[in-house]
């Protein structure tokens, strides 16, 4: 974990292009955590990230703050989940020549399993948001993929809580409008 300092530096520069080695370490951890959580009916992103925090940061670690770690982890979690969704989507597409469709079902979901396309759509919507305002994307990412509270998000990004609240609302609304294009998320 020699490049931890780099990670925080990167975070401060508002970019999450991690050095390969660190990214790989985080990613392995995330996958490990995910596979453990597969047994439980719902995934608790906050618990998962907290576990990762405990595992990955021995005493005296030079992570600047827990918030920065969360931000990194949120991004990694997102990547892992999206990749997983893509893989599954690809698996399903291969080899099933005869498509079965029926009434009352989101056809995309019927083909690809519950939620997969929604997740990809969510990711794309967030990317479009990020292209217009990087901080809004980051705020939403922390909320959705690391389960951070308003307070924690404010600490992680070094802005005030009211600002985070406003950001979160704008970001959610934007992504919500984007998702309105076709895929449906449950209420």
């Amino acid at each position, binding site marked *: 974990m020699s490049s931890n300092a780099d990670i925080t530096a990167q975070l401060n520069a508002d970019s999450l292009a991690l050095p390969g080695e660190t990214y790989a370490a985080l990613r392995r951890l995330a996958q490990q955590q*995910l596979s453990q*959580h*597969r047994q439980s*009916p*719902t*995934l*608790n*992103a906050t618990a998962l990230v907290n576990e990762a925090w405990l595992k990955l940061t021995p005493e005296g670690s030079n992570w600047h703050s827990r918030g920065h770690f969360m931000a990194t982890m949120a991004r990694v979690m997102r990547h892992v*989940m999206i990749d*997983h*969704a893509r893989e*599954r989507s690809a698996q399903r597409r291969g080899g099933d020549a005869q*498509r*079965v*469709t*029926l*009434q*009352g*079902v*989101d*056809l*995309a*979901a*019927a*083909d690809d*399993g*519950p*939620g*997969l396309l*929604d*997740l990809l759509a*969510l990711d794309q919507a967030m990317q479009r948001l990020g*292209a*217009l*305002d990087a901080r809004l994307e980051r705020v*939403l990412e922390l909320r*959705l*993929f690391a*389960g951070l509270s308003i307070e924690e998000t404010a600490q992680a990004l070094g802005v005030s809580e009211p600002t985070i609240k*406003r950001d979160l*609302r*704008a970001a*959610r*609304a*934007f*992504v*919500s*409008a*984007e*998702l*309105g*294009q*076709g895929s*449906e*998320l*449950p*209420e």
Partner: protein
Amino acid sequence: MTPDQFAQLRAHFDALCELDPAAQDQAIADLSLPEHLRVQLRVWLQGDRDDRVQTGVLDQLAESIEPVADARLGQRLGPYRIESLLGAGGMGRVYLASREDGRYQGQVAIKFAGEGADRRFFLREGRLLARLQHPGIARLLDAGEADDGCPYLVMEYLQGQPLDRHCADRQVSAAERIALVRDAALAVAHAHTLLVLHRDLKPANLLVTDDGQLKVLDFGIAKPIDDDSAREEVTTARYFTLRYAAPEQVLGEPVGTATDVYALAVVLFELLTGRHPYLPEGADARSLVSQALTRQPLSLRRALQAAKRPWPLGEARLRDLDALLEKALLRGDGAVGHASMAAFAEDLQAVLEDRPLSLRRTPMIERTWRWLRRHRLAAASMTLGVLGLLVGSAVALWQAQLARVERDSALHEAERAERIAGFLTGMFTAPRPIENQGAPLAASELLDRARERLQDELADDPLLRVQLTATLAETYRALGLYETAEQLLIEALAVPLPDSDAPQRSGLLLQLGRVLSFQARWPEADAQLREAAELARQQGDLATLAQALGLRVTAQLNLQQLDAAEPLAREALSVQQARQPPDPQALRQAEQVLAAVAMQRGDLASARQTYQQSADRIRADLGDDAVERQMTLNNLAAVELRMDLPEAAAANYRESIRIARVRLGPDHRDQALPQLGLGMALRVVGSTEDAIAQLREAVQIYRQWDGVDHPATAYAQLLLAETLWLSAQAEQAREALGTAPKVLYERNGPRNGQTCRASMLQLVLSLPTSAPADAEAWDAAVSCLADPAAPAAMQLLAAWGSQQRQAALAAPISPGERDALAAQGDAMQPRDATLHAALQLWLETH
């Protein structure tokens, strides 16, 4: 959009997001922004209202990692066994199942409501599908509720491909593509005639089955135009597909039949050219609204050229189809698209057959008339069906109107019938979006349009205009839009008619009186009804006269003019007696009105006599077992109960119960009311155990017919619980009372006698535990029951309850209080022996 533009919009978003939608729209209109940014802002704010992201996303993410084990697989559901999961979406999960009892070969699809889905939504889809019977719409086979209470729909299982994939995979010809969209249009047009909009037409919802049949799927977000669930609109709005949604839908404006036509036009355009009529290739679908509102759609010709696709159907048909699609797709500058799905389908057929388009020849209304002329029979039944959906009583008037038309000269008959049919059809096909927020509004918009047209088109036929105005007014009245109904009737009364049509006038005055009565404007109502009665009397129109007199009785009763009411009721009765041929049922009703007036005046003996006569007459006319006799006996017994004649009341209630059993079968709902009455009569004479048995049966019947949440069930539960409590069976009383206090509170409001009585009983039954805590509830119940207008038994319950509470609070009961209660109890003696006995017992032990 650039980041700079985004930042600019973001500032507006922050400023506007706290406002309500109307204020937002106003503020956006005032901003100096380019139109596309304005639209963008609206969409963004709509996203804020929808908020798809806030909740559920984490669960969604979890599900994407590993689907939760599915308990439904292998389950048996009635005759079906669930075999596999076919798919899942926000609205529910769909399984493949097969029938196990061998009666029906093959497989079905079973759709369960999703956990997050709104069940009302789901049940509505079931109801809508049950209405829609068309070969182009997937059939609903069955519906029910699984053991765990989850509702499900059993549907025809269809195997096939979405329309776009079907066309691509099989290289379907242009003509066949048009024919498939025409089939879809015919199916959706069928839904439109039943006032159902689809609202999410897209290739994925248009299935081509393996044998080539087109089926329109997923009426999950469809909405009946006459639906009364205005609030659901908020939740419904979010489910549609932006790419195929017309601007009015995206912007949350009222959507209508033209919205569905727009979607099919986009589908056809894409099938023929491979691209969207408004969106450049690869463009963001969110810019669609601004494109559609500010530009012409791409022409079919240019799109085909650009895509280098051949057009095998010739120049004329290309021109025609181009015009048809443009009409359907055009928005902005006041263009509203193509409102008739049936005409759209017919024009697609015209393209296929190389006939000229109706669209190019004639304006909308004329075209509808032409269509009507060709399909007169179908049109007539459609208009009646459509009107029936609006209001049943309007149909009755309508049929009377048709009967009147028949009496007119043969020459005019056909022409008039056609004008009526054309008029009504026009209500539903005129080129304007017709759906609104909820039932009264949606229907009223249709009516408003009809009203405008009445004046324009029927000026040369005043009688027909008056008759149709009366029909419309009746429809408005039934929708509760009394002021409009009133205004229409006043307009109709102002139309000059030849003398021979004067009967019309008394009818209009009668209607006006009724509308005013519904608004509780009794003096005005009475004035109109008086004039109606006078006219009817002059014309010898005894039916109208009797009705007007009957309504005047109601008005006078409401004006507390009991003395005026009685002679009117008597006159109404004598008019009925004079009618030739007589209308025995109307006669008996007039008798009962007279009895009700007497009861209102406190003249119980006279009321009893009249009810008795009426019951005897029914017996003579219709025999012992007439259902009408049953209802009259109920009224008679109720009077007798009030007259402290419990034995006589019990005998009549018993006879009423017998009739209900003989004529309506065991445990019919109409048996429950006399059983309640009999229970009370038995309680009063002190046969408490028999009383409890009757009340129990009544509760059982109401529960079976009305369910537990119905006020009738709750009231029966209250009477049972009260009687159980009086006979010192507190435990059973508590059980019998159940949720009755809550149901009565929700249905009748807090200041209602039944509500107070139920909550008082509940408080008494929960003594002593709740005594200190519920002081406020006590005070409320006591003050409500101490109302001098409350029946004596309730006042006693309040007094007694207060004393019990005092005892529970260990506060001494003063001798004065005790004596007052005893005196009250003594005064009750002739009325309720069970109550009295219970009270005596209590006084002795305290």
